[in-house]
């Protein structure tokens, strides 16, 4: 189902939370709204769900303007950050609720609840109450309630943020598989760039209510539209070096750390190293600047030893220091970069 935001603005009191947002989601896409807290991503999702009204602009589903359609008639499913399971109902009743509201026959309802429960492997929980479930199980129930009817689109508001790290990675995989299986248009809100990168077919990066960039994860990572996007996406974060009239950025994996001098390499001092298991983060000082580089796991260097850096020149991004906007790339920046 195609979803479109046309110049949508939302203000609360005097504060502009979403500022002139235009976004087009194609049928079957998995769109991630990414940004720090307070960037307006959740408000955007809630406007689509009808839980907030847009101050101006149009929201369209399949070309039909839905600004004035009440939530219950928009035929969307939503997974809340808190899961919002109905505490007084059993799991089966929770999952069956959207069907009950639609006056589906009891037998039909039970069959569909059973099918969805099987898909998410929560059949054994159907008679329990939400409070008897673990976080991961609740998450599955919330998902089940969303997919039990076939809505026009799924909306997910940081659905994994209440899970521990291991479970989050596992559920992330399952979400991706599920979306692939069902082929449903999904709009997913998160502040976790790893979720955005792994799940999305396209990522919309937002900051202070404004859309910064809307592109595939790979393009967002490799061709950030501005300094904010470059900094927000990627872990560890991109290195920035302030130059004259230009800010240069390079990702940690594009800095090679050498233990012996080489032609064109830049001298640097090791500030500290962090062994991550499969790789080592090397924190470096080059003059006034601090850089992070990714080195292989077997890289060893003592604090304060001198090392040499080779920068992948074609991977250097140039930003306008005033606006943060990306500038056209230039060649042979390697030595210039650290000046």
């Amino acid at each position, binding site marked *: 189902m195609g979803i479109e935001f046309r110049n949508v603005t939302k203000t609360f009191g005097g504060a502009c939370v979403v500022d002139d947002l235009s976004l087009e989601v194609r049928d079957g896409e998995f769109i991630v709204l990414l940004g720090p807290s307070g960037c307006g991503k959740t408000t955007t999702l809630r406007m689509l769900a009808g839980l907030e009204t847009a101050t101006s602009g149009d929201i369209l589903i399949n070309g039909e303007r839905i600004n004035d359609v009440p939530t219950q008639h928009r035929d969307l499913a939503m997974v809340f950050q808190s899961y*919002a399971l109905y505490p007084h109902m059993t799991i089966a009743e929770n999952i069956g609720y959207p069907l009950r509201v639609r006056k589906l026959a009891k037998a039909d309802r039970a069959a569909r609840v059973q099918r969805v429960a099987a898909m998410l492997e929560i059949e054994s929980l159907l008679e329990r109450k939400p409070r008897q479930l673990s976080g991961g199980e609740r998450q599955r129930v919330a998902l089940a309630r969303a997919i039990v009817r076939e809505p026009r689109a799924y909306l997910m508001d940081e659905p994994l943020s209440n899970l521990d790290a291991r479970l989050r990675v596992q559920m992330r995989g399952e979400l991706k598989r599920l979306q692939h299986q069902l082929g449903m248009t999904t709009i997913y809100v998160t502040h976790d760039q790893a979720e955005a990168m792994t799940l999305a077919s396209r990522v919309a990066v937002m900051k202070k209510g404004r859309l910064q960039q809307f592109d595939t994860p790979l393009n967002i990572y490799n061709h950030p539209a501005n300094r904010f996007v470059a900094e927000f996406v990627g872990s560890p974060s991109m290195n920035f070096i302030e130059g004259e009239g230009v800010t240069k950025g390079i990702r940690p994996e594009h800095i090679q750390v050498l233990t012996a001098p080489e032609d064109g390499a830049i001298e640097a001092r090791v500030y500290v190293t962090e062994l991550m298991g499969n790789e080592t983060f090397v924190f470096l000082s080059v003059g006034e600047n601090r850089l992070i580089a990714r080195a292989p796991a077997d890289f060893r260097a003592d604090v304060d030893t001198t090392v040499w850096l080779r920068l992948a020149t074609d991977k250097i991004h140039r930003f306008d220091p005033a606006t943060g906007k990306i500038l056209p790339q230039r060649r042979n920046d390697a030595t210039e970069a650290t000046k």
Partner: protein
Amino acid sequence: MLSTQKAQKPQKRFYVPFGSSVRLVILLLALLFALAPVYWMLTISFKTEGEHFASPPSWFVFTPTLEHYYDAFVTRSFGQYLLTSAIVAVASTACALVIGTLAAYALARFDLPLKLNRRLSLWILSTRMFPAIVTAVPLFLMMRDVQLLNTRAALIIVYTAFNLPFVVWMMRGFFADLPRDLEEAALVDGDSRLGALVRVVLPLVAPGLAATAVFCLIVSWNEFLFALVLTQTDAAMTLPVGIAGRVTQYEIKWGVMSAAASVAIVPILVFALALQKYLVRGLSMGAVKG
């Protein structure tokens, strides 16, 4: 050494020797204070008229009789009063709960313009800020004009109006404590506002609703002033007015009054006991975030 051990133990704020027995005595005293008048009333209802005025009073030993109960409910029309009281109390509680709950939900959940949420709530509360008797005469005149004097309907209307602010304020608090996510989930799931209220919200505030209902019922059941002003006939009179009517210029029917009053306690007692589980939860709802 000693001090470190002491520090590790959870400290009691007050240390009272024989603490539990002291507590027991205090409890017993409080019980005695609360129940003595009830006991006295009960014994009077079972004593013969002669024993009512015995000196010293016969506290515990007397010949029980049911004559006052017979007098009250068979000879006189206390059965009728009891029925009226029940109808009026139940009907007005039901009306107040339905209207008040809807109003409270609206105030708790919808953002009205001009800060009306707060203002309306205060206006509603302000209707309870004057003594009830202030409205007695105007209400009498209004009821006379619409020819509702000496009817149960008059009492139901007045009690509903009187209970409404209480219901609105109690329920507003309960609704406000409920996470909005649940209703929003219900809306997204395709339910209407009213459907979400009935299927999701109300079951979750049931303890609060029960506590509110008990209070309304007690207030309506015991109400005296408006019942006295608005009803004069046996057909419309409630129990409190009926009982008070036995205090006359010539005699005071202690036995009949006590018998009727003893019976009047029963319904509320039964109702409160039946809802006890909810009552405790309802009264402490919102006090502790669970």
